[in-house]
């Protein structure tokens, strides 16, 4: 999958799994940051990230290595989309 397609899927996950208002999802851009505490981020906390990881595993069929430090990939939609796209490449 291309990062752009992944990004669209992530926006859907935000609504269906993380309970964001659909109107909010429309405003999101690849540059939008994810973790709480970063200015202008969508404010995801640790609980959200667990749910997001599980949703990503299920939707994209990839396995998240719990022992790896995946935090850098979860910084923004862009980093996350690229990470997921790279893991689904050739799949």
């Amino acid at each position: 999958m291309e990062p752009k397609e992944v990004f669209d899927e992530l926006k859907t996950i935000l609504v269906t799994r993380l309970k964001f208002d659909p109107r909010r999802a429309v405003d999101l851009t690849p540059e939008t940051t994810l973790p709480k505490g970063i200015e202008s981020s969508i404010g995801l906390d640790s609980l959200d990230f667990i749910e997001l990881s599980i949703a990503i595993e299920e939707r994209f069929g990839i396995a998240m290595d719990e022992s790896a430090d995946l935090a850098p990939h979860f910084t923004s939609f862009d980093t996350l989309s690229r990470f997921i796209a790279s893991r689904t490449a050739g799949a």
Partner: protein
Amino acid sequence: MRRRAEPVSLIAAGAVTPFGADLDAFWSGLITGSDGISMIERFPVDDLRVGRGGEIKKLRALPGARRVGCRATQLLFAAAEDLLARAPIAAEPERIAVVLGTALGGVGELERALSPRGRFRHAAGALYDSPAHALARRLGARGPVLTVGAACAAGATAIGNGADLLRAGVVDVVVAGGYDALCRFVMRGFDALRSLTRERVRPFDRRRSGLLLGEAAALVMMVRDEDAHGTRLGRLLGHGSASDGSHIAAPDANGRGLELAIVSALDEAGLTAADVDFVSAHGTGTPLNDRVEAAVLQRVLGRRASEVPVNSIKASVGHTMGAAAALEAVMCLLAGREGVVPYTMGLEEPDSACQLDHVIGNCRIARPRVSLSTSLGFGGCNAALVLEAADS
């Protein structure tokens, strides 16, 4: 300004744990390094990532309790049987209170009520305070019946709340403690949180990767000091609680709530951290809890952090949720009585970020007089108890 509160006597305790049917089995299991963790057999777990926990494999059939379907209530009855065998309740019914902490209440009954063959009438047993009322009826207690719903810190606050009833002269005897039973409800839940480890529970270990759940019930009988005649297990000197106010399912990164709870408990006890001989930590074995808790204990203990023994028993019996704090309080007093501090099973390579005087590898010969027991729970609950062992 906070006033020192009068100590309250804990004259006896009773328990049922994965180690066995009574308090003696619990203590024996701890000091012999028994492993109370096994594959859960009582309900399906094959679709979950983790299917292990501290399951109580066998419950004694109790007289007059044939029709008790609720497992949580069964655990309470078993612990009460053990307690009453050690100390009878000597008070008028209206002067006996029951104060219990729980994370799940009677939720197993909700599962039963909503199952294909379930009966809606089971649902009344699903109310979180149903087991406490069942215990009160069994004990003939007609005073206050309180259920403290502070999740995994509930057992501590139940004991603290019970002590307040005594200090205020509301009742003369309090049966306090905590309980929780394993059920699919909670196993699925912690599985969804990715909190459970697929390996061993390793509190404060650098390789720690999560917790395992357990089930238990632990009860103490409390009276005012002046009403305690004969032997006692020890005293409750102080209880403190504080909210984190930061996250619903993770501890505050700075542990501010836990630190406040500890200071509050010490204040109530009229003591300082310099008086603490031993710490029973919450120590679940999750990466976050242990790091935060160790940092708080380091701050609180200061220079003495390298010489005050600290343990966690959550690898031994699992995290017994509402029962945990009550079990650990009893463990503190037994350690003081027996002169042995149980070691932290599962801890082999302490995390450098969790440097404390861990009791590691073997039990320690020590007779702690003043113990501090810490607990944390969902919703940002933090509770601490300061206990004093009976004079030997």
